[in-house]
């Protein structure tokens, strides 16, 4: 096992390096030189020249990349030219919000998806199964910005039971904090549960056709015990992958959801950085998020190995 972990960790290095190169290139090659952005309506040729020199923008791009990478390795991701805040400060302020949103969304998604999947798999082809399968398909095609606005109109404007926008820190007011998270987490979960349900349902249907399930039935075990104990664990392998990948998708969804619900998370930080062309924040945050995503997949790989011994012994 330690050898397996070490090998996997080694694979991460080239991936992270590639990610850093991509982020840097994208941010540097975007139209609109950083000097123009900072100078705004005062971007006279002389001032642009002077600022580019000050910031080292007149250096060759590979040189600037190496310089940036060197600083990143020292833990210095740079400073916003707009607020003077460092990337790490900005991320540290925003991360708890996005993290909470992701966890709540994933929990709600699982809470809806898993029971439905089990119910559908238990009577596959039945009325509930057919209804839920088509509903899931429909829900998958609803974009988050639409469901967000619909939820706001229903719960905030019409019923007035939940706030439309806003946030309080968890430490300050835990129940108030949850109230603010219900709608955004639900919005994300609405896009998550169909995937969870469909994957788990088909895996369980396959599992339920295995011989050992027939044996369990023949032994006269209760159907609920067969479903939850004998069928669920072997069927959940794909679910783990999906949940891991979903975290990445949720980061994408958070860009929209955090903007609509005015949650001060990483997504908002990114959107704000794009609007104000705060390229230093942009490339720093994208790198950190990508690194987080890569690590998440690494953890999923590890979980796989725990769930299925064949993988860690290389017999796939």
């Amino acid at each position, binding site marked *: 096992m330690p050898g397996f972990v070490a090998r996997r960790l080694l694979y991460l290095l080239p991936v992270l390096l590639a990610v850093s190169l991509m982020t840097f290139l994208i941010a540097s090659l975007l139209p609109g030189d950083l000097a123009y952005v900072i100078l705004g309506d005062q971007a006279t040729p002389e001032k642009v020249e002077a600022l580019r020199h000050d910031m080292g923008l007149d250096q060759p791009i590979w040189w600037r990349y190496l310089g940036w990478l060197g600083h990143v390795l020292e833990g210095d991701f740079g400073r916003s030219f707009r607020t003077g805040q460092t990337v790490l400060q900005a991320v540290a*302020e925003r991360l708890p919000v996005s993290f909470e949103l992701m966890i709540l969304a994933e929990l709600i998604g699982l809470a809806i998806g898993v029971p439905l999947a089990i119910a559908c798999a238990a009577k596959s082809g039945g009325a509930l199964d057919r209804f839920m399968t088509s509903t899931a398909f429909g829900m998958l095609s609803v974009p988050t910005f639409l469901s967000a606005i619909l939820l706001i109109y229903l719960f905030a404007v019409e019923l007035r039971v939940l706030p439309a*926008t*806003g946030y309080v820190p968890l430490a300050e007011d835990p129940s108030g904090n949850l109230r603010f998270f219900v709608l955004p987490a639900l919005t994300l979960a609405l896009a998550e549960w169909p995937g969870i349900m469909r994957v788990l349902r088909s895996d369980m249907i396959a599992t339920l056709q295995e011989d050992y399930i027939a044996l369990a039935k023949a032994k006269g075990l209760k159907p609920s015990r067969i479903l939850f104990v004998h069928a669920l664990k072997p069927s959940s392998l794909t679910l783990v992958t999906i949940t891991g990948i979903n975290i990445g998708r949720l980061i994408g969804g958070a860009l929209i959801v955090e903007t609509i619900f*005015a949650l001060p998370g990483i997504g908002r930080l990114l959107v*704000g950085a794009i609007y*104000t062309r705060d390229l230093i924040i942009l490339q720093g945050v994208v790198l950190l998020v990508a690194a987080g995503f890569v690590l998440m997949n690494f953890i999923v790989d590890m979980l796989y190995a725990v769930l299925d011994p064949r993988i860690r012994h290389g017999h796939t």
Partner: protein
Amino acid sequence: MKAVPAARYLASIFLVAAFAFVSPTSPAVAQKPGGSITVGLEFEIPGFDPLKVGVFDTSTEIAAAPIFDTLTYLDDRREVQPKLALSWTHSDDFKTWTFKLRPGVKFHDGTPFNAQAVKENFDRQKDPANKCRCAFYIAYIHDVQAPDELTVVYNMNDPTVNQPALLTIQSVYNVIQSPTAWKTKGDDYNRNPVGTGPYILKSWIAGDRMVLGKSPDYWNKGHPYLDRVILKPLPDAQSRFASLQSGEADIVWDDEADADNIQKAQKDPKLAVHSYAGSGAAVYAFNTKMAPFDDVRVRQALVMALDRKKWSQAVTNGLARPASNPYGDGSWVKCKDDGALPEDVEKAKALIKDYGKPVDFKMLVTATPRGRTNGQVLQQFWKRVGANMEIEQVDQATIPPRAFMRQFQLTPWRIIDLADPDPQMYANFHTGSPVALANYSDPELDRLLEHARTTADMDKRIEDYCAISRLINKEAIWFWTFQNTYYAISSAKLKGLPKIYHGVIDVSDVWME
């Protein structure tokens, strides 16, 4: 019609010394003290330290208004009134302005507000070593002196007849910040601003809430009314409006791009729409050194081909107000004849025909949905008269450098809402200015611009500016599309909001019924 505001304006400059404690509003109803409001802004506030943020965007100016004071303010009739300054005088050549300051005012940290504080604010922004973007906006002021505790002297590079009005906006270079605070707090000052205003910063959660509390020792006794003001960035227009409807926000920033919600709010008795028809306009500049715009007939034809009403209908449900001169309804410059060219497709066609050569050109357009829509509308207008415009989509930040280097044939630009037309008109049209984008030089235009900036008589200035408008319209070197209009939507219970000058929703003195 035009003489009345001009006379009032003059009176306000010279007779202002009589008032010591003027309430920023003079409402007929009783104000109710206490309570709190939530203000929904468009963007997150980056901070308040000029050296860090360079310039304030509108969201930051809205937050700066209750925390800081300016030397002067504009009342609802656009007259300059005293705030931190009590009175002012000027030299005969308008190159020196002397302000007498309000005594006994303290910053929230206890630092006394005095002439030295005003000078230090100015010097810090002006110092070339600090490389502040804000320095550009005070370049017209040579230096600021503090001969005694309560006297501030502004020495101008050129005659400036309207300096008190130019100090009214809550911009980075006009609000007075505590020198002690920025010196002692260093890097932390940006997010811990200290002013003399009616509200004090209590807490600020990054990206979320800025909570302001009533200042117990505000110099204007009896003000402010509210106990708390909460400012929140609500970046999405739909959910910002929903927050107002559901009562989580009491007043929100808005603009014409959100015309549907503004019109919905106008019909809702629980909501109030505050709009201010500002001066200035969205404009376009032709590069007259490049064909085909080196020929006046082509420029005139393209301007005559516009149908601003239809355009406004298409893009903003008719909310945007067509502009026929650079000043707008919000300006004190009112012209009987601004020389606007008629919107006349047939005449435009005839001019293009007369020109004889094909009219093909490129126009810069910002790569935003709004920019593209405007570009497509113009393309259709000009196609009708036989001109082919190709849209060149560029990043917003690319437009200023392209404009400065004159690397364009036709570019969008903006004249913002300022209390006096001089700074922008002189920069935009005087020969040799970096933003005289049209590359056009006319001794008569230069003479009028110089005369207008050095003349105190408002009637004469109005005459000058109207002549300038006629000249520019006739030569069609720039054209104006829509006037600047600023919007805020609030609960109908929110009272006491002043005019939204420059787009700044100043909640310093509002109360809830």
